[in-house]
């Protein structure tokens, strides 16, 4: 009977567990969970603050999940090192856990730049974990002035989640636009306007030089007085444990399309891993939830001696702010075509006769049809792409293709 060990207890770990159990129902699985929580959905913490969910509903899998899957969970324990010769993981309390196959699904942690005066700021928070959200919630009052450093996905979701609980929110970012990792200038500007219409203030192309207790001094010369500081600058992969064991690490733990690291019997998945990104043809950290699950699942299958390859990961995001939905996928090189209406913008990026990427703002119905065009590298000449630009519809395919897609035998 195999011994499986998973470092981490998030989405990638669940994928790994379910991947293992699809092949091997016997082997023991030990899950090392730094957080003292049943597995929950991290991206839901802003929805929690908004009152749209609660810690019970946030559970990513039901209460019986670990028991049903024969998992032993070590809560509140951190893996300190991996000994690939002895095939053990050493925990922070010195305990050694033996493995036959190991998956590192250790996630990421907030990146906090060394701001001058940060230590003297009393109400400062990161926004990644449920505990972060719970402690931020306790500190918020109707009179709170909140400064959020970082206008990316995490910072802006945090802003949305707390807007109705506080007096004012200012978001600053070094980048000149919001959501700079997923939107271009034009799309970002329309989203920014929507966010401003909903009460957020922005200081873009600007950064904090220093903090003096409850005041931030900006590079532009402006000052921001705040009661609560949220740091959402970015994240770093928790990859050190593999690096120290001699494994290859770049911005994340380098894995192949079977989720194997360079160390024997050691796999990695999720935000700590740098896997193949089919949209650019090289390895990249794709810190998005679907990717974490799919990498974890593929790792689990392979750990249990099944055969799984995950080689069509692409960046993609679906995110909403105050009722405005935004979707993006793929890469943004090549030719761009824009379709604009009064309350929507769609931008399509094509290269070499295939769709490479898109940004959709305000009109997102059936967008998965576009995503599948990217993933399957569908030749645009084989579909009605003029129609596709106007509307995501299965009508863009030929009748034969449609029959095949929908399982028709007529």
């Amino acid at each position, binding site marked *: 009977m195999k011994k499986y060990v998973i470092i981490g207890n998030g989405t990638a770990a*669940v*994928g790994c567990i379910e991947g293992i159990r699809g092949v091997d129902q016997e082997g023991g699985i030990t899950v090392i969970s730094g957080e003292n929580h049943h597995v929950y*959905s991290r*991206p*839901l913490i802003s*929805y929690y603050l908004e009152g*749209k*969910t609660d810690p019970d*509903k*946030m*559970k*990513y*899998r039901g209460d019986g999940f670990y028991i049903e899957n024969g998992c032993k969970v070590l809560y509140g324990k951190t893996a300190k090192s991996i000994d690939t010769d002895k095939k053990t993981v050493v925990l922070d309390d010195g305990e050694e856990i033996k493995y036959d196959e190991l998956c590192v699904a250790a996630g990421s942690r907030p990146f906090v730049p060394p701001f001058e005066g940060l230590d003297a700021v009393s109400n400062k928070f990161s926004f990644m974990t449920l505990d972060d959200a719970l402690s931020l919630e306790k500190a918020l009052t109707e009179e709170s002035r909140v400064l959020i450093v970082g206008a990316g996905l995490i910072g802006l979701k945090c802003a949305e989640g707390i807007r109705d609980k506080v007096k004012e929110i200012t978001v600053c970012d070094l980048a000149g636009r919001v959501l700079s990792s997923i939107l271009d200038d034009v799309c970002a500007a329309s989203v920014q306007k929507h966010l401003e219409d909903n009460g957020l203030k922005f200081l873009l192309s600007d950064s904090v030089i220093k903090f003096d207790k409850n005041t931030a001094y900006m590079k532009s010369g402006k000052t921001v007085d705040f009661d609560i500081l949220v740091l959402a600058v970015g994240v770093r992969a928790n990859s050190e444990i593999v690096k120290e064991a001699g494994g290859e690490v770049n911005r994340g733990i380098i894995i192949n399309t079977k989720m194997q690291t360079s160390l024997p019997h050691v796999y990695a998945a999720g935000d700590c891993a740098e896997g193949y990104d089919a949209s650019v043809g090289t390895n990249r950290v794709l810190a998005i*939830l*679907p990717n974490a*699950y*799919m990498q974890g*699942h593929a790792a689990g299958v392979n750990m249990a001696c099944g055969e799984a390859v995950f080689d069509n990961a692409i960046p*993609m*995001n*679906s*995110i*909403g702010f105050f009722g405005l*939905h935004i*979707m993006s*996928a793929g890469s943004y090189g090549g030719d761009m075509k824009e379709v604009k209406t009064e309350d929507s913008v769609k931008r399509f990026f094509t290269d070499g006769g295939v769709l490479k990427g898109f940004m959709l703002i305000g009109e*997102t*119905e*059936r*967008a*998965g*049809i576009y*995503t*599948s065009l990217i*993933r399957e590298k569908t030749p645009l000449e084989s579909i009605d792409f003029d129609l596709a630009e106007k509307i*995501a*519809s*299965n*009508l863009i395919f030929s*009748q034969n293709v*449609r*029959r095949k*897609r*929908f*399982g*028709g*035998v*007529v």
Partner: protein
Amino acid sequence: MKRVYVNEEWCLGCHLCEYNCAFANSGMKDMAAALKDKKIFPRIHVEGEDKITFAVSCRHCEDPVCVKSCIAGAISKQDGVVRIDRSKCVGCLTCILVCPYGALALGANGTMQKCELCLQNSCGEPACVKGCPNKAIVYEERSETE
């Protein structure tokens, strides 16, 4: 397993399936009371124009990408049926971003809804199939070669 299939040559584009779907999932006994003068949120929708029309609903995929992608863990596969726990859904629309068939849509309360084959509602069998006047929508087992 039995799935809902559409023979598009026979689809009249009448949209009755959408109304039957909305009614079957309304929890109400009277169709007029359930649907009259209301915006409906069916779990099957008719696409197409003029000569070509066809209804689209969840394919209940062998390897459903929506289940793997749902950020809330709200979508699961149970006995072959892809189901959604709407109490867990936060309406992020990631499932819309990944479903290659465009089979999911928002419901009235801002959470996602999808075809669950009417197995849990008062109809007990797919209402779209039952009510299709031209038998364009069928509920049957087919060996799919993908």
